[in-house]
């Protein structure tokens, strides 16, 4: 229902953004002399004070400091609780964030950058910190991070080096990422986080060489010694996924000879989910190679990469599991952990333009994904690990033909090759095919003062596996100061992360000043 409402609203954007005004076409009432007389007419625009010319960077100065200060508030619309009983209706976020960026002009045309952000969220203090889990306080109350921090320059005429923390943008998609695997993302506030704040920079060395008659070919090699991972909602947050353990409890009851229903109270809290992240600099670095060509009307690129998955996969290993119930016994069964598989990617992507249309696509084959299943419980635990490959495909189209409007549609499918039905249950909840659709409409009005955006993302071929719609309006109140408001609507489903989000709808407000 919410998705339908959201899509109808999106369609309304489309229609109203491209409609001509309903009033009379005034120009038809003017004859040629009237029209040409428009040059001599007195300007009826009220005279306001001249804008002071913007301060230009001193050409003698080798540094430039820019940044922004933003205030974001979010309000949960529905009465609902997280899995720790924390209420998430009402004020859910009141975040002040300061972002700074220092750019340096260095000798021999080299450049440097140091950037970062820090935020403090007062929502938990206003509502009472005791309401929130320790994990939520740790992750959401405040944070500071060094973002892009690098040196960049040319070693030779056609050989560039970029060394340090950076964002490596692979792929063409804006919403459904297939090739864009090298940078993890900050997904702590699903749907609320702007795209520009999504990617987390990683420490890397990147070499780019350019060749071809027009310099339109590019070979890029990137080595990433710093391992960083996605930031996701934590236990106790209303976006922390609800885990369906019904098939696990059934397996345990049958395997241990317990009465049916005796383990019904087994919940996510019983599974101590250890996060087995590799050390940041402790092991073999990730790496990637890309070869691309840019031509008139089209471009393409080939990619190879070896990297750790950015989000952990739930894995099992022999260990102790506490079972609920009258006996409340701990048995040597298994423990759950988050594992970050080392994955190989082969991929290709491309763009093609025709008139007001842009067509884009990405295809990736990923190998090295491991899925654990609990094959036996008694007399001894047997955990089986299946290694699978996956084929991801994204096709997209963007249309620029409506006035001041861009419509973008992306459809992606992630197909697990040689799928087995046992992967559907605990702890993988995998699907053979995971279809995702994203539709984004952006309309700019009033000479770019006002931007309206509608984004709908849905999972499943019948859109039944979870979705969200985000509607927002951003208004340039005065130069470099923007205010915005919007609403996020969620629909629950079986897709990862959408298990119990149907009540997580949010209203949000934001203000940002750039300097």
């Amino acid at each position: 229902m919410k998705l339908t409402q959201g899509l109808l609203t999106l369609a309304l954007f489309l229609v109203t953004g491209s409609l001509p005004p309903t009033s009379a076409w005034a120009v038809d009432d003017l004859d040629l002399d009237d029209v040409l007389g428009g040059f001599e007419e007195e300007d009826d625009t009220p005279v306001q004070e001249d804008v002071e010319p913007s301060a230009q960077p001193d050409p003698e100065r080798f540094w430039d400091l820019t940044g922004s200060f933003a205030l974001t508030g979010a309000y949960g619309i529905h009465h609902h609780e997280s899995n720790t009983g924390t209420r998430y209706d009402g004020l859910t976020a009141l975040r002040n964030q300061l972002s700074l960026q220092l750019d340096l002009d260095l000798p021999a045309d080299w450049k440097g950058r140091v950037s970062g952000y820090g935020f403090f969220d007062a929502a938990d203090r206003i509502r009472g910190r005791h309401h929130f889990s320790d994990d939520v306080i740790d992750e959401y109350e405040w944070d500071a991070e060094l973002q892009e921090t690098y040196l960049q320059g040319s070693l030779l005429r056609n050989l560039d080096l970029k060394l340090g923390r950076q964002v490596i943008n692979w792929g063409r998609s804006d919403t459904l990422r297939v090739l864009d695997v090298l940078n993890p993302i900050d997904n702590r506030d699903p749907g609320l986080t702007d795209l520009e704040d999504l990617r987390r920079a990683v420490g890397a060395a990147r070499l780019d060489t350019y060749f071809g008659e027009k310099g339109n070919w590019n070979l890029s090699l990137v080595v990433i010694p710093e391992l960083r991972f996605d930031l996701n909602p934590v236990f106790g947050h209303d976006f922390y996924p609800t885990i369906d353990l019904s098939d696990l409890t059934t397996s345990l009851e049958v395997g241990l000879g317990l009465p049916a229903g005796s383990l019904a109270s087994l919940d996510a809290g019983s599974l101590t989910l250890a996060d087995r992240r590799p050390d940041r600099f402790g092991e073999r670095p990730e790496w990637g190679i890309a070869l691309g060509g840019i031509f008139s009307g089209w471009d393409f690129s080939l990619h190879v990469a070896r990297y750790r998955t950015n989000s952990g996969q739930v894995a099992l290993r022999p260990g102790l599991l506490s079972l609920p119930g009258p006996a409340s016994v701990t048995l040597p069964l298994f423990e759950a952990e988050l594992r970050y598989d080392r994955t190989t990617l082969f991929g290709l992507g491309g763009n093609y333009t025709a008139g007001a249309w842009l067509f884009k696509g990405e295809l990736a084959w990923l190998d090295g994904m491991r899925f654990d299943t609990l094959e036996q419980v008694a007399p001894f635990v047997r955990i089986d690990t299946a290694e699978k490959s996956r084929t991801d495909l994204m096709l997209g189209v963007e249309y620029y033909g409506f006035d001041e409007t861009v419509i973008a549609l992306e459809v992606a499918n992630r197909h697990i090759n040689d799928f087995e039905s046992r992967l559907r249950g605990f702890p993988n909840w995998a699907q053979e095919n995971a279809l995702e659709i994203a539709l984004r409409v952006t309309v700019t009005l009033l000479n770019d003062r006002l931007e309206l955006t509608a984004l709908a993302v849905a999972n499943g071929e019948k859109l039944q596996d979870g979705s969200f719609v985000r509607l927002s309006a951003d208004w340039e109140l005065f130069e470099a100061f923007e205010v915005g408001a919007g609403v996020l609507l969620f629909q629950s489903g079986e897709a990862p992360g959408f298990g119990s989000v149907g009540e997580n709808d949010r209203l949000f407000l934001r203000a940002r000043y750039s300097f």
Partner: protein
Amino acid sequence: MIGFWFGGLLALTLALSAVPSPIAAAEELDGRAIMERVDARDDGDTGTSDTRMVLIDKRGKKRERNLRSFFKDFGEDTHQVLFFLSPADVKDTGFLTYDYDGNERDDDQWLYLPALQKTKRIAGGDKSGSFMGSDFTYADLSDRPLDSYDYELMKEVEVGGVMTWQVEAIPNNEKEVEETGNSRSIYFVRQDNFMVVRSVSWTEKRGRLKYMEVTKLEQIDGIWTAIELQMTTKKGKKTLHKTELFISKVRFNQELGDELFTVRGLEKGL
């Protein structure tokens, strides 16, 4: 046809200029011949400039954009790149265009978004959209093919104390109307130097009129260049919005490397 070129809007100013040609003024020229002279001027093989763009809404409220731009001819085609210098929320945004001669090929365009550290290819076929919220469209800033228009010399008119030809230009194919958003234009071309000093265009949608006027000329490196101009959007007689351009640091025929006009150059920035 107005050869407005993109490139810090420098090309716009060049499109309005030509080497003075007193002999031409004495010839019997029709509309097409006049626009051919406008199009055939020497405007340099490369150019750089800084542009201050002031956007004024109907309440008189002003916003400002500053940008630096470059263009270079590659045979009959023109490559142009510009970078925004201010305000802070658009600083370092870059735009690269390959403007191909004729209308057989759509222009190639890329937009560099510094916040995303990403270069995005965009469809260049539809140029009727506003350039960065200004009253100039992408069509105003690109080279339009002469053959896509029918021209008629209407009369001779004095503008600012100088005799001009008043030439009407009407697109002769639907594609040109769709691409530019204009259904008709009238240009005022100075008879002494083939500069377009005024124009008015009828927009196909929304029934608006766009008035362009050059308010200051200067001769730079031997080339007459419009360094102050404005574009006003009106609905009937009512002004909806105005954009004023102030162009400075104009240089022609400097050595500009090809690599500046590539995606690599776009991402590298200034």
